[in-house]
């Protein structure tokens, strides 16, 4: 394999990986505060793309994306307040079924609003054919946007969780909800905030990737499955592990093309998920002792 081809696969892998990682982080944020998997996470990504495309007709690109992210955050908050907040001691299963129901609801609503066609944002720099040479390989500038924005989001989230008091409160809520309540933290608001946050990062990712992947009303499901795989692979609840696992899966997928036919790409990622579930059910980077204490 030439260096050029190697770089080409690597960049493709990092692109897939960053997108998977962002979806997985969305899963993790909500998992940490509520203990559930929000299966509507992929729909946040779709909404981010679709709303940006809609707002672009009225606003310049950065404003359209910002507004789309804010709207998706508001939708995330609304979902939590309307469907999750008032539940008294909800079971894990019940919450999961609620989020699956919501994902179907959002998807069908999107079908009615935006129709079944693919939509996409224009390329942020250049157009469909512009390329940048990276060590002999050629990549679209939009790929760098996706990787860059995803990296920035990860940095931002880390700073947020480590250095701000709200972030620390959310972590406290994740670590031990009862203790957090005793410390005077309003855990309910933390849960709402986690929905807002994961809706926001999902939407931003959805907008940035839209020129490359297109946005269609039903892209959420596929993304949610990949993101879920990555979240499990890294160890549920650990956002940095999700990044590592996302990149790992993306790169494996990209390089697998050189050995086996493309048609087996998904089979490979699912096979990896199965192996992880059998061998290290707490994920590559998770601890089995911690996983044993969790309800789900």
């Amino acid at each position: 394999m030439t260096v050029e081809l190697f770089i080409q696969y690597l960049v493709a892998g990092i692109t897939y990986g960053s997108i998977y990682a962002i979806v997985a982080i969305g899963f993790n944020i909500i998992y940490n505060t509520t203990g559930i998997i929000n299966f509507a996470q992929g729909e946040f990504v779709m909404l981010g793309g679709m709303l940006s495309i809609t707002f672009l007709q009225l606003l310049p690109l950065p404003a359209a994306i910002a507004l789309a992210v804010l709207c998706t955050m508001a939708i995330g908050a609304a979902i939590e307040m309307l469907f999750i907040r008032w539940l008294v001691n909800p079971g894990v299963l019940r919450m999961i079924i609620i989020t699956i129901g919501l994902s179907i609801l959002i998807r069908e609503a999107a079908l009615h609003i935006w129709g079944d066609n693919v939509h996409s944002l224009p390329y942020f720099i250049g157009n469909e054919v512009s390329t940048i040479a990276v060590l002999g390989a050629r990549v679209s500038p939009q790929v760098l946007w996706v990787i860059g924005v995803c990296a920035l989001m990860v940095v931002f989230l880390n700073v947020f969780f480590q250095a701000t008091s709200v972030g620390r409160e959310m972590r406290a809520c994740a670590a031990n909800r009862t203790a957090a309540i005793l410390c005077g933290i309003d855990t309910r608001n933390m849960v709402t905030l986690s929905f807002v946050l994961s809706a926001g990062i999902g939407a931003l990712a959805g907008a940035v990737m839209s020129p490359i992947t297109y946005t269609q009303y039903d892209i959420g499901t596929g993304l949610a499955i990949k993101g879920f795989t990555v979240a499990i692979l890294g160890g549920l609840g650990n956002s940095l592990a999700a990044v590592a696992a996302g990149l790992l899966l993306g790169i494996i997928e990209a390089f697998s093309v050189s050995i086996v036919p493309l048609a087996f790409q998904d089979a490979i990622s699912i096979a990896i998920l199965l192996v992880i579930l059998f061998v290290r059910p707490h994920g590559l980077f998770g601890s089995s002792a911690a996983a044993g204490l969790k309800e789900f």
Partner: protein
Amino acid sequence: MKGLMRKTVTAAAAACLLLASSAWAETIKLGAVLAVTGPASFLGGPEARTLEMLVEEVNAKGGINGQKIELFLKDTAGSPEKAISLAKQLLEEQQVVTVLGPSTSGETMSLKKIFEDARTPLISCAAAEVIVDPVASYVFKTPQNDSFAARKIFMEMNRMGASKVAVLVDNSGFGKAGKEQILKIAPEYKIEVVEAEVYDAKATDLSAVVAKIKANPAVQAVINWSIVPAQSIVVKNIRQAGWDVPIFQSHGFGNIKYVEAAGAAAEGVIFPAGRLLMADLLPDGHPQKALLVKYVKDYEAKYKETASTFGGHAYDAFMIFEKAVTVAGPDKEKIRAAIEGLKDLPGTGGIFNFSATDHGGLALDSFEMMTVKDGKFVPYTGK
């Protein structure tokens, strides 16, 4: 008084029922199973809208031989399982005389035996050759054969002097059937397939596989055979890799939305397509010109969206049904025989000539080679 009232009501109700059932008997029941929603909705959507428009138009003129058409349109969402149960429902409950659709080849194949057993004509809007080869007595189709498209592409490659190709197909029924045809026909044109890959219809980025085929120095041209939006991603990824290879698409590219999705990368893509995409550019005497121009104009005025060849397949299916019923009346068996007798019938896809052995009715000349220039479809002249 009360008794009288009750009697009147009963009588009125009975009269209503009688009237209703007599009105019922007079309509021609036409079924349609189309993928109006779901992944194949870009086919089923325009097809369904076309049918609704045409049925409305024919009924406004008084129907066929004085009988109104009653359309039972069912949405399969592109799923063969749903297509089977909806088709059975149409056959058994609504007792339709003919069913139009389905939109995809996979669904059509799953219905083939059902319609043979039910002895009811099925006029499919899907392209795969296996639908009519081997011929099933009751199954017809309106789109051009995949092999015509493959032959047109190979003929152009011969002209260009390209003999080694990479083939990329999507994993839909259309893609799989296309790959089979390409591999089967290529040797006839002395063309060698050096790379063949299948991509997921829901793929979001295909730069890895593009890198792989680009790394093969033998590849002189790429055939990207697909009917799903992901085909635009292939085109983009090829150009983004800085690869200036001739790209051939299938007739599944004949939707301006795919050109919009691929943007600047779509420029210069070569593909075979029905004449619907060049209706305005046809010479005035062309037998298809008048009906193509009218269909495109009517459709675009009514639905405010660009007419596609896919909607055209439903137009042809309906027109064939209409002609057959005009000749034979609303009887399943007679409709079937009448369709086989249709000759020199211009449709959106080409000139139809059906026979007992040809249930597709179209020939190689039903396709024209086209390309994309400034974001629009234009006839391909071979630069």
